[in-house]
Every structure is written in structure tokens, then in C-alpha cells.
């Protein structure tokens, strides 16, 4: 996949294979795939929280923790990211797709 | 030709049937059951387990709960089959006089035997025809069926038709001669088969069926018991009641050894 002139590897679900490849310009690209019409400050708050947590703990945070720390209810998170915190928000934040029973 | 059909083939057929069934069931029983397949809720006592398996064999509750129409014709077919087989065993030895033991006259006994025999045969015929029709009429069943599935039904139908023919037409079939002939077979002193073509065909087809059963889906009469036993087996109990002694481990615990043979 070539985005903005740089070669990025994505898996079949469209997630970054190597989280280190994440850059801000990719977020716009992912946003279109995940039905996010416009990237607002609220979106970035979630994305930044996810990235920080992932850097520290190598995994996505618990959904309730995400809600609590960002101050958004689960409903609001779905409004921001229609495909959900696991699929939508994690993809935009460059995290690997959460797998398992989710 | 008649010598072969009358005095050789029956032994061949029964031999193949017995050996074949032992081989087929043995093939299954030789393989271990590494993981209990208990289908819950499972019966808890030995007698209730026995009851469940027998209940399924006798009444077909799974069909009753699933498809009443199928239940009716499959059950009738099997029940009339049982009556026919039972009737042959009893009837051939007693020539229809068995009911005298419970107080009927000879005439009444013969009439009752004839009634029971004919009605079982007719019910079986009707059931088989309906099952055969169902197999062609229901699209998924038709797609699922192999030629062998039709062959099974047709073979059994041919046997039933030839048997009913003997019973219901005025073709004179000499019952005493047949009785003597079968007695000869059973006592290993075979005598020539009675020459009535209807009897010869009926008997020949029965022997063909005996040879066919162990190698076809008709083994389900035995397979059913083997399979259902797995489903009613008790679930494991923990802590395991066997001591963690290596000698006991290999003998009692059914460890699975299949897998990555690469």
C-alpha cells in the first residue's frame, strides 16, 4: 500500500502490520475506511490515549478505561468511531486489531 | 444353479453377514474414545443410560421431536420389519399354530397368524414406498442421496413384495416343504430348495441383503448403539479418581495419540 508516497504494509483487515509505521497522515486514510467523516479534537483525544496506552502496555486498553480516561461514554465513542472502539478507533490509532472474543 | 442358490449361497450369506458385522463393529470398537462426548443433559445412572439408548432404538424420539411425518413412516417401517422377522422365526417353526399355546384353536391361530403376517407386510410395503417417494420428493434429501440409498430401499421392497406375493395370492407355496428346507439349512444338512420361483427369488434376495448389510449404511442398527453409548457416557469427574501412577495412566486414561505425524 502506498500512502503519501510511502510504502506501508497493511493486513487483510486494513490494519497496520507494523505499529511503528503509524504517522498522522495515515489517520485521514483510515478514517475514510471506518466511516469517520471528520477528524475532530475528540477523535484525536481518543487516538492519542490509545497510542500512549499501547506504547506502555503493548495492547489496547480496556474499553471502560478508555471511556473513563477520555471522558466519553461508550455511546459517544461509537458516535465518533461508528465501527467501534476495537475496530475503528484502534485502526486509526495504528494499533493491531484486537483479536479474540471481541 | 439351484444347487448353488439353495445349498451353498445361504451359508455364504450368513457367514459374510456374521463375519462382516464383527469386522465392521470391531473396526469401530478398536478405536478409543479419547474425549467424552457426553451430550448433556446426560442420564446419571447406568439404568437410565440403558433406558435412553433403548428408548431411542424402540421409539425414535429424536424423529418424533423433529419431523412427525418422517417419524411415522420410519417407525412403522421398522416396527413392521421387526414383526415380519419375528413372525418368520415363530411362524416357520410353528407353522402358524403358535397361538394354540395361549388357548386359541388351530383354526383361530392360523387365521391370527395370517392376519398379523399380512398386515405387517402391507404396512412395511406402504412405509417403504412412502420413504422412497420422500427421498425423491424432498429436494435436499434427493441431493443428499446416493444411488446406494435408493438401492437399499429397492432391495428391501423387492423382498417385501415377493414375500407378500407368496402370502396373498393363490400361488401354491408349500409351507411344509419350505419348513423342511430351512430346517435342513439350519441343521447343516441341506436339502434341495423347493422349486417355486417366488420362494427362490425371495430367499435369494434375503441372502443378498445379508451380504449387503455389513458394507452399507444398514449397519446403522449396530452403529446406533455404539454411537449413542458415546453420547450417554458419564462426564469425567475431577479430581480424577485414578492415582497418578504411571502404570495406571496408560491403562486407564484414554490419551489421544493421533496428530502431527509429520
Amino acid at each position, binding site marked *: 500500500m502506498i500512502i503519501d508516497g510511502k510504502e506501508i504494509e497493511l493486513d487483510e483487515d486494513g490494519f497496520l502490520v507494523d505499529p511503528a509505521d503509524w504517522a498522522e497522515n495515515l489517520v485521514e486514510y483510515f478514517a475514510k475506511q471506518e466511516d469517520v467523516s471528520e477528524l475532530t479534537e475528540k477523535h484525536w483525544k481518543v487516538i492519542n490515549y490509545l497510542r500512549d496506552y499501547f506504547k506502555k502496555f503493548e*495492547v489496547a486498553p480496556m474499553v471502560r478505561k478508555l471511556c473513563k480516561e477520555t471522558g466519553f461514554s461508550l455511546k459517544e465513542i461509537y458516535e465518533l468511531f461508528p465501527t467501534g472502539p476495537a475496530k475503528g478507533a484502534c485502526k486509526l490509532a495504528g494499533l493491531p486489531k484486537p483479536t479474540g*472474543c471481541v | 444353479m439351484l444347487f448353488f442358490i439353495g445349498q451353498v449361497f445361504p451359508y455364504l450369506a450368513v457367514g459374510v453377514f456374521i463375519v462382516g458385522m464383527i469386522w465392521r463393529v470391531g473396526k469401530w470398537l478398536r*478405536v478409543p*474414545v479419547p474425549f467424552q462426548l457426553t451430550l448433556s*443433559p446426560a442420564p446419571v445412572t447406568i439404568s437410565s443410560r440403558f433406558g435412553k439408548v433403548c428408548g431411542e432404538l424402540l421409539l425414535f424420539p429424536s424423529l418424533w421431536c423433529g419431523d412427525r411425518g418422517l417419524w411415522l413412516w420410519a417407525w412403522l417401517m421398522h416396527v413392521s420389519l421387526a414383526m415380519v422377522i419375528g413372525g418368520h422365526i415363530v411362524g416357520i417353526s410353528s407353522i402358524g399354530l403358535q397361538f394354540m399355546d395361549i388357548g386359541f384353536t388351530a383354526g383361530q391361530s392360523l387365521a391370527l397368524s395370517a392376519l398379523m403376517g399380512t398386515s405387517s407386510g402391507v404396512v412395511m410395503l406402504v412405509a417403504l414406498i412412502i420413504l422412497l417417494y420422500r427421498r425423491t420428493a424432498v429436494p435436499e434429501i434427493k441431493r*443428499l442421496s446416493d444411488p446406494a440409498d435408493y438401492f437399499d430401499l429397492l432391495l428391501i421392497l423387492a423382498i417385501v413384495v415377493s414375500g407378500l406375493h407368496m402370502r396373498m395370492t393363490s400361488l401354491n407355496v408349500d409351507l411344509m416343504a419350505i419348513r423342511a428346507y430351512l430346517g435342513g439349512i439350519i441343521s447343516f444338512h441341506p436339502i434341495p430348495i423347493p422349486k417355486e420361483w417366488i420362494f427362490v427369488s425371495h430367499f435369494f434376495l434375503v441372502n443378498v441383503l445379508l451380504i449387503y448389510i455389513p458394507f452399507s449404511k444398514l449397519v446403522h442398527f449396530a452403529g446406533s448403539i455404539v454411537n449413542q453409548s458415546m453420547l450417554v457416557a458419564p*462426564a469425567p469427574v475431577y479430581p480424577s479418581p485414578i492415582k497418578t501412577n504411571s502404570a495406571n495412566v496408560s491403562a486407564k486414561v484414554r490419551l489421544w495419540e493421533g496428530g502431527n505425524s509429520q
Partner: protein
Amino acid sequence: MKPPMHIAKEKDTAAIGFPLVPENDQQAVTLSKMKDLQSSMRSLMVMLDNCTKCGNCAKQCHSYLGTEDYFNFPAARAELMRRIYKRYFTWVGRTFGRFAGAEDFDDETLNKWLTYFYQCNECRRCAQFCPFGIDTAEVTIAARHILSELGLMPKFMQGIAANMEKTGNNMGIPIPAILDCAEFMEDEMLEETGLSIKIPIDKPNSDILYIPSSADFFTNIDTMIGAAKLFHYLGVNWTISSNILEAANFGLLFNLNVMREHNERLKTAAGAVGAKLVIQGECGHGWRAAKMYTEGSNGPVDFEIIHILEYCAQHLEKLPLKKLPMRVTLHDPCNYARAGEIIEQPRAIIRACVTEFVEMTPNRENNFCCGGGSGILMDEMMEIRMKLGKKKAEQVSALGKLDYLAMPCSICKAQIPAVMKHYGIDNLSMGGVMDLVGKAMILGKN
């Protein structure tokens, strides 16, 4: 035919010990694996030999009813393997070919297996309605095992297996994250009750080892909180092991050797912790694996294995519960009702926790699968998943107004909300049974 899911890449399957078998060798290896399985599990030959093609299973399978695809009809699904079995392993099939229902292995065989054996939820409902008890799940388990041994498996399964190997749980949650999650949940409980309720991780010399589903540490934390509150109230000495933060055993769903490995973790963890009692959390197939497959996989064990719902039901009378004013129904997970002997316990618990409990129809061992069973949770199969969940949606909508749908299995918790949303039934909460216990329990200031 292209299987409707992403297939794991060669390097990924090789990384978990399943290198891709070259196409030319696939037939030979398939037949060799079939032979292995035939001599290892009695169920396979018996179930392949005894089908009389009566078709009673058709109307009882939610997969067939929902997708209306002929090969999802249980007997037809089993035929995909049965025909190969007859052709190569029975003299009748070898001699009489198509007459006896035998078929040659061809280019499409493995694609069909991948497509259809991953549309069977291994729910065992067909076994109930088969006069012989033929369990298509057994054939599916065998087929998926053979496919994985060839290096063919959904990406979903491979990812989970890789995570499990690395971290001991399906989600790949490493130890620091586990501790962080536990701390968060402890904080939540403190805020709610004013009590310091702990979630011990790797506490040595514990009597009880609790094995939650890893999803209880991601999306379904109310289930974990419910269990933690239960243990706290009963004052028992319990812990979670970071080596096996996973009640699930996805090996059961794609490869039996992997199933044994995952199961071994359970045995090792229990030994390490010194637990005499292992309690499995809300996970359907994981319960079946723990209860039915432990002895056969790893020999005798000297601890007890029970389910959190059994344990909770045993102690139900003691618990300080105030009934929540809700109208609740229960979805019986397949692996509890048809493979795990857990039928009445969730009902007893729910009745103690809420004011109104209603049964869906059919229920108990006759219940329909949610459609996600055996790990069919792939995003790319969403359309098929929604068809598989059709019967479930019908069952729930028939109940009218509901406040809560109890579904004590992680796969169901992932699948059912998507199904309900798809079919327009979204005015109800959904979650586990232990969630209700946590919410109904009177602890501290709440």
C-alpha cells in the same frame, strides 16, 4: 470456490508450527491425517459410517435455516468428508465409487472444507435430533484439525493461537497490562462499594485458581467484577494466573494438538499456584474443553474443575442479593447446555438476581446457537454471521420488551450484540450472568 474468510499467511502458520503443505502433497497429507484421526477417535468412523440420510437434522440446524445453503445442512456438511472417506478408506467406496457415495479428492475439496466446516458452529444440536446421535461437530473438529495440519486455517485462528503462545491469553495481553487492568477494576469496585476488593494475580498458595476469559479483561469487565465480588464476599483464598488468563481453548476449535497445549497450561498453572479447585469463567467451548478434554489431553489431575456458575449456584443462598427490577432472559450457550451440563445453575442465579425471568423458546438443550460458536467471529464473515444468528434474533424478538439478555459465554457476548443490532433489536442490555450477580450484590455502601 473462495472461502469467505481471510486465510492465514504461510509465514504466520509456520510461526505457530503449521507450515503450509505444498499443493501437490495436500491430498496425500489429508488422507494421512484422516487415517490418524480414524485410529484416534472412535466418533469419526462411527459417525461417517452410520448416516442413513434421513434428513431430520436439516430443520434443526440454525446454520442451514439461516444461510439456506445446501452444504450447511448437517448431513451434507458431513458428506464433504464422508465422500472422501468412502472413496479412500472403504473397499465399497473404492470399488463402487459414486454408487456407494464415494467421491474423488479434487482441487475444490479443501476449499469446500474451509468454507463449510467454518460455517458449522459445533453446537451439537444436530446430534440431539439424529436418531443415531451423529454429531456433526465431531466431523467439523476433525476437518478443521486436518486443515490446520496442512497449514490451512483462518487468520483469526492463527492470530489467537500466536497470542496464546506468547502471553497465555487470546487477546495477547502481557503481564503489565493484566496488572493495570486488574488495578482499574479494583478502583471501579472501590468507587462503587467503598470496599477494597482485590483481583489477585499470581498469588502463590491460593486454594482457588480462577480462569476468566481474556475478554473479561477488555470488554466484559462486569463479568470479572461479578466474580471478584463473589470471591470477596465468600472470603476465599483465590487468584488468577497470568500464565493462563484465558478460559477459552481455541485449539478445540481448529487443532487438537494445540488444544492439548492450551489445556496443559491449565494443569501447570493449577500446580504452580497450588490450587485444589480450578474455576472456569464464562466461556462456552473453554468449559467443554476443560470439563471433557482435560483427562484425555493431559492425564489425570488432582484438582477439582468446576464452572463459576456452578460455584456461584452452590453458594447462592449465602449471597446478599437485592433483586434488580429487570425483565431478563437467558441464552443457553451451546457448550453449556449440550456439552457441559450447565443448564439449571444460570437460571437459579438469574432468578435470585432479578425480579422477572422469562425463558426463550426453545431453551436449555434445545436452544439455538448464537451463530458465533466455534470461533466464527471474523469481521469479514459478518454477512454469514448475521445469517447464522437469524434464529437467535427470532427467539429474542418473540419475547417482546426485555431489559437484559444474559449470555454467559464470551463468544456469545461478541456475536449476539452484533446480531441484535442487525435485526433491529437494540433496546436491551446484554451481558453475562456474573455481571448480574455483581450488580445485585449488596456490598459496602452500594
